[in-house]
């Protein structure tokens, strides 16, 4: 659906995005994670044919972003939720959607049907005749989502759709994304929010000018962070730790009354570790497995590039 090959963008001497290569499959939710200034918005803008590329190529379905004739076709089949919602404050919710429906050449009947459907789904139907300028941030974001879907696009690009929203509005937006995912649309999502990426995305790319890694959340966690076993003891002392270090080869960290031990295969190694502790006269109170989060992975990868 989306194929990106060695895509690069420079603004004068500054390289915003360098050598991006990835694919997004049909019906997939692909998340782009990265710190501020990593090139997420620049990538979306290139893919939406808003700005030109400096190098490489990208194709959306069968259309190339670099060809002027293809650019119009691409823009017909995509929807964009930009980081700034960019609604017309002096137009009502209905008028905002109707204007974009007309621009996307949506026939009148379908346009009105879609306006009603999306405004109802997002809980804004009762406010359809109220000017967008009086809407809250969350309501504006919902309206921007409806605007991006007004022409039933195959692909939806979203740039930080839940940024600066209160938890309730953010949840509504996330639920809505999951709902449109069920309809089989392809979604390209820029986000800062690791929890959101984990919940919503099928695959995640971590970007910092260059694409650092791509994979599904599970794969990323497994490939980049070792599991750890956390053991709470009745008492931790220097003698116990040094005795333990002689008995097991694993890396041991001490945190208060807890030992945090790196393991490769918890099922196999944990019984040996527990046996080593008890034979060193340690009293085990609690054993738990620390599963690395996406945040751990993200921070580790971004840190490695510094």
């Amino acid at each position, binding site marked *: 659906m989306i194929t990106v090959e060695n895509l690069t963008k420079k603004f004068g001497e500054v390289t915003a995005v360098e050598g991006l290569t990835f694919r997004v499959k049909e019906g997939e939710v692909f998340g782009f994670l990265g710190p501020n200034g990593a090139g997420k918005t620049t990538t979306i803008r290139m893919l939406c044919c808003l700005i*030109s590329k400096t190098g490489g190529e990208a194709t959306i379905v069968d259309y190339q972003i670099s060809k002027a004739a293809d650019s119009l076709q691409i823009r017909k089949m*995509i929807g964009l939720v*930009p980081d700034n*919602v960019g609604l*017309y404050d002096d137009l009502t919710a209905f*008028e905002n959607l109707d204007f*974009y429906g007309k621009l*996307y050449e949506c026939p009148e009947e379908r346009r009105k049907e879609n306006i009603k459907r999306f405004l109802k789904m997002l809980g804004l139907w009762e406010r359809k005749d109220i000017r967008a300028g009086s809407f809250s941030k969350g309501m504006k974001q919902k309206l*921007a989502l409806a*605007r991006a879907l007004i022409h039933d696009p195959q692909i939806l690009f979203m740039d930080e759709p839940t940024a600066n929203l209160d938890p309730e509005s953010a949840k509504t937006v996330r639920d809505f994304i999951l709902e449109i995912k069920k309809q089989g649309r392809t979604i390209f999502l820029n986000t800062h929010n690791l929890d959101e990426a984990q919940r919503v995305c099928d695959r995640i790319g971590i970007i910092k000018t260059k694409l650092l890694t791509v994979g599904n959340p599970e794969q990323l966690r497994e490939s980049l962070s070792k599991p750890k076993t956390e053991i709470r003891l009745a008492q931790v002392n220097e003698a116990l730790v040094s005795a333990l270090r002689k008995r097991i080869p694993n890396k041991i960290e001490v945190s208060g009354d807890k030992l945090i031990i790196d393991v490769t295969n918890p099922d196999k190694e944990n019984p040996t570790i527990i046996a080593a502790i008890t034979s060193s006269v340690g009293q085990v109170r609690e054993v738990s497995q620390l599963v690395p989060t996406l945040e751990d992975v993200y921070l580790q990868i971004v840190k490695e590039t510094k």
Partner: protein
Amino acid sequence: MSKAWIVATKDMRIFLRKKYALYSLVIFPLIVGIGLPLVLHFVGARQGGLSSTRLPIIMNAFSFFFLIGAATLPTVLASYSLVGEKIEKSLEPLLAAPITDSELLLGKSIAAFIPPIAAIYISSIVFMVLADLVTHNTLGYLYFPNWTIGLILLLLAPLSAILSVEWSVIVSSRASDARAAQMQGLFIMLPLAAIYVASEVGAISLDTKTLLIISAVILAADIILFFLSTKTFQREEILTKWT
């Protein structure tokens, strides 16, 4: 429906809801359409009044106000139309829609052109009727319509309005708020004001020949500014430098 017209109707709907834009469309034509004939009436009613030889010169000069209006009013709307998109940050979704740069520019230009020209035409009709009523007895004939005001309204006013819109596109690309764009946009009025002053002091006569020469100059400026404004109004330029 053409996409340029879709953009134009959207912008015109927004203008109707902006008090400042609405007032500028009403106040100037009201002053010129009704105020100037009232001036003729009160000055004419004074002892000595206005002579039948002086009246045509004054009425030609007053006709020139419609030209100044045609050059200034589109600046107000074009600034709102272009800088407004910048302020509301609505350019990104708009440019992501399947609309070409020229359709967008044309739509914005139509929106800034039609309401002022309509206001100028309506007020000119009011002006001509009232001025004829006021001056008919002194002159012994109906002064309006005549070639001078015909040229001003049908040729010079549209050309000046186009010039004003194109100038506003260029100015708006650098301005950060609508007021600043309007202030810079009003510079377009200066050459026309200079012509008016020149006619008032008798340096030039606003006869048909002079008006045709002025039209040719404005047309040439329109063509030059058209190329400059289309160069300014390009997708990437708009998105990376306007926002």
